[in-house]
């Protein structure tokens, strides 16, 4: 049984010109202890599909799916109270902007202890001890002192470590990391990725890594889903994706990497679409593998 199974997910938003389809019939499954990367450029619907799983989309979004199962249980029609019990405990998420996703009005210690209080019902002393343990685990120096710091007193990399500590506080079975390192420097990115992968290997949780960086995919994923304009272009294990990409879009993405430049010019994605700079619709892209 897959940890998370989504069949034929569609997300639509109402706009002044009619319904806009952000995610169009995407199916994703993640096994226990598996690292799945979802790759795509902005607007490909990679974040929106995961926000739909978390139930974090605004009420204006119309979400339909044939199936949406977490550990075999339906999560599509949960009541808000049931959802709150699941989200943050068994499914946790790390967001892109670490500084923006922490509450500036409270100390980071309060924010991590809140999770422990609500989901695990620990008493004050146990919460404190567990918070210190988590901060040590994510490699924050002086955890006792850091608990009393406010987000603005920490660097971006440190804030991201706090976010990770909050996400793993209840030993989630599935961790969704939405571009966890895009806002960070290369050296810090390396540290954060190492930390996430280390935690994943130790706890055996499922991990969904949302990213647009092919380098991050290469360094973390077991399996990869490539999305473009809300549709799934390709799904393959990481080695075959890089060695032998099937869809034209993946080929184009790989060719556009500066390190794969041949001669003086980079191959642009549009070069794969017969000189049509913006492909009109993803339906025009051939070679889609389901």
């Amino acid at each position, binding site marked *: 049984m897959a940890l998370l199974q989504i069949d034929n997910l569609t997300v639509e938003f109402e706009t002044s010109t009619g319904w806009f389809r952000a995610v169009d019939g995407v199916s994703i499954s993640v096994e226990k202890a598996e690292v799945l990367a979802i790759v795509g450029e902005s607007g490909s619907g990679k974040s929106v599909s995961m926000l739909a799983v978390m139930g974090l989309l605004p009420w204006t979004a119309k979400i339909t799916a044939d199936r949406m199962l977490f550990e075999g249980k339906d999560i599509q029609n949960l009541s808000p109270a049931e959802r709150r019990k699941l989200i943050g405990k068994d499914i946790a998420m790390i967001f892109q902007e670490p500084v923006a996703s922490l509450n500036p009005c409270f100390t980071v210690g309060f924010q991590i202890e809140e999770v422990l209080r609500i989901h695990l019902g620990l008493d004050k002393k146990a919460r404190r001890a567990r918070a210190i343990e988590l901060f040590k685990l994510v490699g924050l120096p002086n955890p006792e002192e850091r608990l009393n710091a406010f987000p603005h007193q920490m660097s971006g990399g440190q804030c991201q470590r706090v976010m990770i500590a909050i996400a793993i506080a209840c030993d989630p079975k599935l961790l969704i990391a939405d571009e966890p390192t895009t806002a960070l420097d290369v050296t810090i990115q390396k540290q954060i990725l190492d930390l996430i992968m280390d935690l994943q290997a130790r706890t055996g949780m499922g991990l969904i890594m949302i990213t647009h960086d092919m380098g991050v995919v290469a360094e973390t994923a077991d399996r990869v889903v490539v999305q473009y304009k809300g549709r799934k272009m390709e799904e393959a294990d990481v080695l075959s994706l890089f060695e032998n990409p099937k869809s034209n879009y993946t080929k184009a993405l790989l060719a556009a990497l500066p390190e794969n430049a041949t001669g003086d010019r980079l191959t*642009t994605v549009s070069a794969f679409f017969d000189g049509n700079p913006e492909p009109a619709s993803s339906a025009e892209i051939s070679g889609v593998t389901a």
Partner: protein
Amino acid sequence: MSDINTPMLEVRNIKRDYELPSGFMKPKKTVHAVKGVSFKLERGKTLAIVGESGCGKSTLARMITFIDEPTAGELIIDGQKMDTRPGHLTAEMRQKVQIVFQNPYGSLNPRQKIGDVLGEPLAINTSMPASERRDRATEMLIKVGLGPEHYNRYPHMFSGGQRQRIAIARALMMNPKLLVLDEPVSALDLSVQAQVLNLLADLQDEFDLTYVFISHDLSVVRYIADEVMVMYYGEAVEYGTREEVFSAPKHEYTQTLFKATPKADVDSIRERIAKKKAASAA
């Protein structure tokens, strides 16, 4: 004065300090953002400046484009020593250097039409009639891969890549010789990034431009740069040709930087998967 052999840009031991405002009972503090950097850049070449946030690379860019005044040091552009004191810079000097900023969403005025964005430098610096300004702006739009129909549109009607093209077009309106590009592609998607990098390469050939290219992405630097300078805490810790720096990085920080950059080649993936298998078997 400016024959073909004089370097386009020469920077001699340039420094910039920022003084933090002192509070009550709090002594004054000085931040040394750039601590004495020197380099020479030949015409038509690209120098890439690499480093993490806070290393002083953007401060250096601001000094080269006269946005910030250096605390000490000399700035020689096109063989001419620049008098960077306020009020001593002539419009002619400023025309030679232009800048393209990182975030194309923040660097364009949302209430200004694209045609006016491009025409404004001409209106301020020349006595060109409006019709000619319009022709020049349209011409430049075509050169950066946009069309005349975009002349009357507003910035919000464009994608990130298109906006960056507009920012590049604006920088080129005064026919600069030196273009400072402050992380011009880091806010863009991979596919769009390739288009903008190609455009920059084409424009460099066409207008004989010299680039100072600031970036933290080593794969982009390896693609575009002739020379590379690595900055760390306000100092240039490594400076050499692209081949020198990439084949044999000398400084410890450069080596850390190379190690930290994710590798997207098949061999490293194979290696990682093998390692993972071994770990799970043990």
